[in-house]
């Protein structure tokens, strides 16, 4: 099977396909307490399967999540992009920042470009982000991105989550990057 994972560039990040070399920082994040809001903590095997799943997501849906790589150091700083596995309420913009890279605005920068890609390239008319109760930093980021609370969703594995609804393409000039960056 052939499928392509596009590469996007932002001022400080390269958003690119997940690959084998990403496993150490990926597994470290998903093994940590910080991952409790996004389905963790996971065993190393569970993290590896998830990394493989992120690649397969692109093949099955035509979109997915990118590894965000810092342009200056080449380090993988997070997993950010578009997520819609079976049983998801609707396509989501998600952001997981790996340990040690929080507080630098990377999630905002990457999420804005992921949202612009969803609207401008894929033609999405709306997008949500799911945030678990207590994940205040993620909720604050959703609010900074212009999203508003829009009900909740309970998933059989991830449990109860708040739905944040992003402004649609018509509410954002030029897909949103220029409007909010």
């Amino acid at each position, binding site marked *: 099977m*052939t499928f392509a994972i596009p590469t996007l560039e932002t001022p400080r990040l390269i958003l690119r396909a997940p690959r084998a070399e990403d496993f150490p920082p990926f597994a470290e994040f998903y093994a940590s307490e910080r991952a409790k809001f996004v389905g963790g903590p996971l065993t190393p095997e569970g993290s590896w399967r998830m990394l*493989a799943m992120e*690649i397969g997501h692109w093949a099955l849906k035509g979109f997915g999540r990118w590894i965000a790589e810092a342009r200056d150091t080449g380090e993988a700083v997070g997993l950010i992009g578009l997520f819609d596995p*079976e049983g998801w309420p609707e396509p989501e913009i998600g952001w997981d920042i790996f340990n040690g890279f929080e507080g630098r605005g990377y999630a905002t920068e990457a999420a804005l470009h992921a949202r612009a890609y969803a609207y401008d390239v894929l033609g999405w008319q709306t997008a949500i982000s799911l945030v678990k109760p207590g994940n205040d930093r993620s909720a604050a980021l959703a609010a900074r991105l212009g999203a508003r609370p829009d009900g909740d969703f309970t998933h*059989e*594995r991830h449990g109860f989550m708040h739905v944040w609804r992003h402004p649609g393409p018509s509410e954002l000039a030029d897909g949103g990057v220029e409007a909010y960056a």
Partner: protein
Amino acid sequence: MPKNIPVIETTRLILRGPEPEDYPNFKSTFTSYRARFMGGPLNPYESWMLYAAEIGHWRIRGFGMWMIHDRDTDETYGMAGGWKPAMWPEAEIAWVIWPEVAGRGIALEATHAARNYFYRQLGWKTAVSYIDPKNLDSIRLAERLGARKDPAAPTVDGHDVVYRHPSPEELDGTQLAHGIEMEIGHYADPMFKPKGWALD
């Protein structure tokens, strides 16, 4: 690492990479009782995540599980190939056959071809299969493929039994290889009527 998953053709089968349109068949088996020895039954979310991981496994490792298709009708029969998530002691040769097509020697034919590919094209020197000790059909298939229990080899989680496959040399023009191919030949013969219990 090859971006394209290789295609393998056998007497009755074509093995190709897992495609999005094959997912419903995968889900049907993995959400069923048939998956009880493979970590299942899975819920639909887990099943989808596993199928996506099957595809990603190829990109990360350069090998993985093929989808088994009928050469003529293209319908899917199951999967066979290699599997090695992080922390697994060794690369595994694995198979799963949809329950409705069990008993036709499809797993034998597909897994034999996959193993030959790993040995001849990828240079594997050995391989194991991790099998639930209650999964008698899979143990029988491992034995028909010439694998033997390897009590000294590390298991995945202590609840599985390790079967060690014959080495490339043990399958190179040997009586064992001939026997496997003869059995596959029987199943490929439309006049062949297997007796006894259903075999994968």
